[in-house]
């Protein structure tokens, strides 16, 4: 891992964001986490000032994405990320309360790498996030090239 992986967390619910962050930390992942509470800001950051995503050319990114955002749906962001030549290699983890089969299918079709429903059962949630943390620590996040 040349560059440390930067975690982009798009989550409008601050409580959820805090819980996710805590559990990631508990699993021993100490990478930077950049929180965004709405889709517009997150997209602005991801695509950069020029809107091409070239700003993250040499960075390894991992995106945690909530689908229910105040200004757009996470699916819009997922689509743009996966259509962007600089960003499309970044793994996207969709985290949402929806366990609708159609929505899950749609996310995978659009290129999401992991889909995690936020269960009310906290143990499951915490476990899922921690495992995700372990997963972060072992996967090789490719750097955007080109």
């Amino acid at each position, binding site marked *: 891992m040349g560059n440390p992986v930067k975690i982009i967390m798009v989550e409008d*619910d601050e*409580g*959820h964001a805090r*819980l996710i962050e*805590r559990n990631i930390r508990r699993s021993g992942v100490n990478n930077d986490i950049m929180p965004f509470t709405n889709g517009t800001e997150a997209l602005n950051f991801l695509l950069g000032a020029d809107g091409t995503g070239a700003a993250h050319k040499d960075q390894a990114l991992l995106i945690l994405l909530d689908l*229910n955002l105040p200004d757009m749906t996470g699916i819009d962001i997922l689509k743009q990320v996966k259509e962007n030549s600089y960003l499309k290699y970044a793994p996207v983890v969709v985290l949402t*309360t*929806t366990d*609708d089969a159609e929505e899950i299918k749609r996310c995978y079709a659009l290129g999401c790498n992991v889909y995690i429903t*936020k*269960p*009310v*059962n*906290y*143990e499951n*949630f*915490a476990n899922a996030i921690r495992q995700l943390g372990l997963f972060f620590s072992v996967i090789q996040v490719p750097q955007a090239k080109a």
Partner: protein
Amino acid sequence: MRGYPHTRENHYRHDFEEADQQIVPTLTKLRTLTSDSALQQRNLDIIRPLTIQRFEIFRKAVATAQAGQWDEARKLLIETSAEDVMGQIRDVAGAMRAEEDRLFRLRRQAADDSQSLSAIVTIAGSALIVVLAGFSIFLVRQSSRARNDAEQKLRDANLDLEAAVDERTADLREANQEIQRFAYIVSHDLRSPLVNIMGFTSELEELRDDIFGRIARYSRAAAALPEPLPDSDGNQESGLTEEDKQLSEDFTEALGFIKSSIGKMDRLIGAILNLTREGRREFDPVQIETRALIEEIVGTVAHQASEANAQIRVEPLPDIVSDRLSLEQIFSNLIENALKYLRPGVPGDIAIKGRNKLGFVIFDITDNGRGIDPKDHQRIFELFRRAGVQDKPGQGIGLAHVRALVRRMGGTITVSSEPGKGSTFTITLPARWTMSRQGKSYG
């Protein structure tokens, strides 16, 4: 007659005798014939005595002549042949004849008049008939036109009505969809804060352990007790005072209630989500071999059935055109319920029967389980409502869901049951369901 005394020929006398015999009946007949005319009667009154008197004279003359006194008879006849009597008779007879002629003319005139009157009446009557016929034709036409108008209006009204019904149906459908969207969004959005509540409650639990662990440490330090070796279950609270122990337990109890309530709320929200998801699902009517479908369901619950010591009998069932998934859900819910609410210690007997009736298929799912109190027969179909002893897990959703599905497929569901004996759920579904007959869905 007057010739008889002169000629003495008998044929004159015969003529007279003949006339004499006929005169009275003739006069009588004449009286009868002229009974309608007072004038003629009066004339007859004049002529009758004269005539009779004349005949009397003749008879006398004949008798005289037959006595051989021919001259006497002749004289008698001549004497009495004074023209006055005969002339009188002639005058009166002439008057009578004239009167009769007048009467005849009069009557003919009257007859003519009445004939022409009857002709006029006939013509007038015919004309009246024609007019009446015309009028009735007019009336019939008018009424048939009125009827046509009315029918047209009725057709228009029908069309209006249909349009109104369509409009209302569309409104209702829209309202229903609105409710479903609402239920979906609400239940979905409710889940988000619930994740936080549950998450931070669990965080609090961890904090509790930290806090009381620390209190325990301080207590031990204050009491100058040795630090205990960390035991296998990680209990760090062994040094707590009684008061602190009580606090710790209260803390745990409060958190426990919060968590169990959250769990319950989450299940309810999940149930609503599932219902709205089902309500939004598009149905797809296909030909279904009902018996095979139910055998399949029975196969999936075989384990539960053997645990409950129950047998499930599937009788030959009529096939149906309906939505497969809905039918599966309906039958598996009912069969699972039947297995769930058997009487403990009594071998279960569950039977599934079916029959065709007037374009509908009627299914009976009968069990010998604990049964349902009659006051709960409606209640069990309501969302989140349950009946009887609450000794089995469940949210009170299954039957509400089943009823909603059955209704959406244009059917009905009823229950008949006796506590302690068993229950029979009866489902009536259209044998050949098409989407156009789709009943109301959740709402």
